[in-house]
């Protein structure tokens, strides 16, 4: 049996494909929206993943150091190191800063860590690790900096000695790594004028020995949860296992964004359904004469319904393919990380097929109402 849907599409192939590609752009945007959410979750995990911590110690009653600010005295590291089960303690600072490579402002996230220790909280793709107190930095390629660049940060100038790629903060800002002392100076040291003013007021501004968090690694066989509970019993500290910190990052930081993205995705899918429905309805109306002829020469309703239904599904499938190509082609251009999962695409495909089938109902309804006698009379 002749497939009327394919023959009709082949007859006006260019128009059909152009229409499908147009709808595909909408579907591509849906995929990108989902990819943005996945990207946010992915970005949120980069720093914790690179740090490979067992326990995070932060200021009491805070969700720090990413969800809330947290300040601790650096010398707490000695007390923490003395705990049974603790293998290593690494003090860290975190700070958002604006830099001006190529005279354009770029927001970056600075992590300070003790470069003299064994911790390497990044994955180098170029260059070398920083040395202590040498005014050196590791920068991510997304910052716009290159190996050998000199950058002003706070009161100092730093040289880029190493590069990472796609290492970003939970907010999507490119990471910069400094030696701890230099990072503390950047974050906690006040200007000379302020120091003089604070002394005059009687307050102590020697805050250089402050950090935002400690990352602990424990010995094999030690339960991080039990140890973190023990630390949390201290009056002025909060402790989270790595899993708890990851939950803070994903749940607290990106939950609202996830809801917004979810809403946009649903709205875009509804718009896609309406557009496909209108397109199929218009295609059907443009074929009213042919449908009348088909009915007149005896075509059963199943033949007509199949023609319209197949065209609608094919429109959806081609739109999906076009959308996928668009999403993959443009994912790297977006400033935010976009992660495109095959599983998400597969689920969206099923949704698009269902939406296309439902969208064909308006066209089918019109077709079934056509009076075959309208084909007579020229």
């Amino acid at each position, binding site marked *: 049996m002749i497939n009327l849907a394919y023959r009709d599409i082949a*007859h006006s192939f260019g128009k059909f494909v152009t229409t499908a590609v147009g709808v595909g752009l909408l579907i591509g945007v849906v995929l990108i929206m989902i990819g943005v959410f996945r990207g946010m979750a992915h970005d949120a995990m980069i720093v914790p993943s690179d740090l490979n911590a067992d326990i995070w110690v932060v200021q009491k009653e805070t969700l720090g150091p990413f969800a809330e600010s947290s300040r601790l005295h650096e010398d707490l590291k000695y007390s923490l190191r003395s705990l049974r089960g603790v293998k290593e303690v690494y003090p860290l600072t975190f700070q958002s800063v604006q830099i001006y490579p190529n005279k354009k402002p770029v927001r970056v996230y600075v992590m300070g860590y003790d470069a003299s220790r064994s911790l390497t909280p990044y994955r180098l793709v170029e260059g070398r690790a920083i040395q202590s107190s040498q005014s050196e930095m590791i920068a991510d390629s997304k910052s716009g900096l290159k190996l050998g660049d000199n950058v002003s940060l706070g009161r100092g100038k730093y040289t880029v000695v190493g590069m990472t790629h796609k290492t970003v903060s939970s907010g999507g800002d490119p990471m910069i790594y400094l030696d701890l002392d230099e990072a503390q100076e950047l974050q906690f040291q006040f200007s000379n004028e302020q120091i003089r003013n604070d002394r005059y007021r009687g307050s102590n501004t020697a805050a250089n020995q402050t950090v935002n968090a400690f990352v602990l690694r424990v010995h094999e066989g030690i339960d991080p949860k039990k140890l973190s509970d023990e630390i949390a019993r201290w009056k002025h500290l909060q402790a989270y296992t790595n899993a708890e910190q990851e939950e803070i990052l994903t749940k607290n930081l990106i939950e609202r964004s996830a809801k917004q993205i979810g809403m946009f995705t649903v709205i875009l899918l509804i718009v896609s359904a309406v557009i496909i429905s209108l397109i199929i309805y218009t295609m059907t109306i443009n074929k009213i*004469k042919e449908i009348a002829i088909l009915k007149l020469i*005896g075509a059963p309703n199943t033949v007509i319904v199949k023609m319209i239904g197949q065209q609608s599904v094919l429109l959806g499938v081609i739109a999906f393919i076009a959308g996928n190509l668009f999403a993959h082609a443009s994912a790297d251009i977006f400033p935010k990380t976009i992660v495109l999962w095959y599983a998400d695409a597969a689920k969206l495909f099923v949704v698009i097929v269902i939406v296309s089938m439902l969208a064909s109902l308006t066209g089918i309804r019109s077709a079934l109402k056509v009076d075959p006698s309208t084909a007579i009379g*020229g």
Partner: protein
Amino acid sequence: MKNPVIVLEKIQKTYGSGESAVTAIKEANVEIYAGETVALLGPSGSGKTTLITMIGCITEPSAGVLKLSGEVVYDGTWRVNDTRKVRREQIGFIFQSHNLIPFLNVIENVTLVSQMNGVRKHEAIRKGKELLEYLGVGDKETKMPSQLSGGQSQRVAIARSLANNPSIILADEPTAALDGERALSVMELLRKLAHEQNVAVVVVTHDERMLPLFDRILRVEDGRVREEG
């Protein structure tokens, strides 16, 4: 004695109801036999198209009896479950403007109905090619309707109407869009088909020049059908 393939007994069609009711066909009694060419003549609005659409099981009559190939199709209500199946299996249609499906090529247009009737594709194509050759357009089977002349399109339409081996062909002004020579050619073809294929051919026409080609002439005036000559 031959049995008629089309029987109309007091067939009536009324549109509307009450005071605004309009009777398009009033108690028509007609018998048409296989192999006959019958012209339906009459002015515009006389009810010719209504009559042909009732015979074609497209328009439901308001009263009377309609029999096709000896089977009662309508006697106050439709007696068949699927009127489209009746059309598909027993009736071929030819329109004023050929009305070929624009997105199907010639052979697909011709074989569509037989394939819908369950004939295997290669068998339908074989029969379709034979018909196209018979009608003089055998070399056009892969062309699209937009690539055909008016006369060629009408021949393809005739081939389509014959592809399902109908016992009846209903033609609604098949030569109206053709020049004199082509119109005559198409009418002669229909006459030849009626006689050779033993098909009842009923043609709605305004063209009185073609009347000598018909075996019978039915005149429709003010809803009444009467035979001439």
